[in-house]
């Protein structure tokens, strides 16, 4: 028996397909237009503009402190605003707070999961956040009493449906931004655990994020396995700019100190610089001899130097303006997995799969 509705449904289906194909055409046209608009303004390369700038001399940077104590790969680290304390997290489930001047361990927490891929220091210095394979981000207030069990005061803040890849407090201890293997980023209220905003747009795991310097307003950048770096408006949840020039996963993103640009590090063995006002990639930091992925990047205080931690155990230091490598640092005995410059720019710290952290200056 034929249903009398079948002809109508068939017409609806045809209309649907027509609209879908119109939209597809429009999307292709818009993508081409986007490329053309970006290309029109591409009148010069960054390194050409920087030709007249003095080259950088020889750099003497050495390991000044080695922090030993993790029982397995160090996956993440962050500096405290006091410029001397560091929090680090490891595959063995431990989160340790160090005094980097003395190399003493001040606090240690054992997480209920292994692979603690993300950790962050609160702006006040009174708490740390961490998470990983537990799909959560938890906040631990740091007690002055060394005998106190930190785990007892733990607060679960973020809940994702896949691993936590990165976390960062915003300007205060009250909000945390997270990124996850579930393809989303999210903003959470620490006290209530409430989800304040979620950010959808990546087509695969989001691996990293960085907040814009506070003077430049409420945005952040994220990088993912979809090879895209997205810039987001924190209040509306909208993706305001998107960059897709890397050839593989983006493991690390970091804002240039002025907030007008950001750098990325990828499994494609390159670091790249994207200018937000020109809306395009403006530099690639690569060498034929560098074939291993970049896990982590950060700028020196003036933005002139870009430090990259690589899977070939080295740290390469790049002249951001000229695009050349100015130094290569050896010392770690396995992949460098995380790297951050200290808040006052006097040193930077690297963490590695060799179980140690090193402070360089």
């Amino acid at each position, binding site marked *: 028996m034929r249903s009398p509705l079948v002809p109508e449904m068939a017409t609806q*289906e045809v209309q*649907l*397909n027509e609209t*879908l194909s119109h*939209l597809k055409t*429009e*999307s292709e046209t*818009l*993508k081409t*237009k*986007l490329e053309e*608009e970006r290309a029109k*303004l*591409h*009148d*010069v*390369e*960054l390194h050409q*503009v*920087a030709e007249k*700038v003095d080259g*950088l001399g020889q*750099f*003497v940077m050495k390991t*000044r402190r080695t922090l030993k104590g993790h029982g397995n790969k160090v996956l993440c680290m962050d500096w405290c605003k006091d*410029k*001397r304390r560091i929090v680090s997290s490891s595959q063995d489930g431990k989160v340790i707070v160090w005094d*980097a*001047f003395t190399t003493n361990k001040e606090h240690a927490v054992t997480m209920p999961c292994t692979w603690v891929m993300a950790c962050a220091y609160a702006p006040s210095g009174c708490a740390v956040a961490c998470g990983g394979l537990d799909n959560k981000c938890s906040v631990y207030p740091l007690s002055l009493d060394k005998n106190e069990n930190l785990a007892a005061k733990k607060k679960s803040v973020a809940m994702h449906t896949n691993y936590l890849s990165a976390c960062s407090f915003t300007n205060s201890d009250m909000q945390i931004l997270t990124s996850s293997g579930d393809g989303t980023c999210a903003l959470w209220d620490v006290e209530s655990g409430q989800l304040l905003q979620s950010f959808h*747009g990546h087509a695969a795991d989001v691996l990293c994020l960085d907040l814009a310097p506070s003077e430049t307003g409420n945005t952040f950048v994220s990088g993912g396995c979809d090879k895209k770096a997205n810039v987001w408006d924190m209040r509306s949840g*909208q*993706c*305001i*700019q*998107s960059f897709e020039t890397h050839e593989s996963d983006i493991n690390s993103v970091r804002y*240039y*100190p*002025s907030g*007008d640009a950001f750098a990325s590090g990828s499994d494609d063995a390159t670091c790249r610089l994207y*200018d937000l*006002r*020109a*809306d*395009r990639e*403006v530099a690639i930091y690569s060498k034929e001899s560098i074939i291993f992925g970049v896990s982590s990047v950060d700028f*020196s*205080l*003036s*933005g*002139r*130097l870009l430090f990259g931690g690589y899977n070939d155990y080295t740290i390469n230091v790049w002249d*951001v*303006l000229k695009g050349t490598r100015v130094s290569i640092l050896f010392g770690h005995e396995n992949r460098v997995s995380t790297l951050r410059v200290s808040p*006052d*720019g*006097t*040193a*930077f710290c690297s963490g590695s799969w060799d179980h140690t952290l090193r*402070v360089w*200056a």
Partner: protein
Amino acid sequence: MSGSSNLVAMKKVVQQLRFEASINRVKVSQAAADLQQFCMQNAMQDPLLTGVSSSTNPFRPQKVCSFL
């Protein structure tokens, strides 16, 4: 119906692209000049760039104190 959810998804993609296509951009020469200027202005305050001496960098080797 998967047809209409494809439609909703495509509409979002097109909306997002329209938004991205409409933003104001500056020339690379201008953007690059600004990046360079920021570097130059802040160069002297960048300890890793200028190589801060031992007396002011807490991480560089200090004279060692010895117990008497």
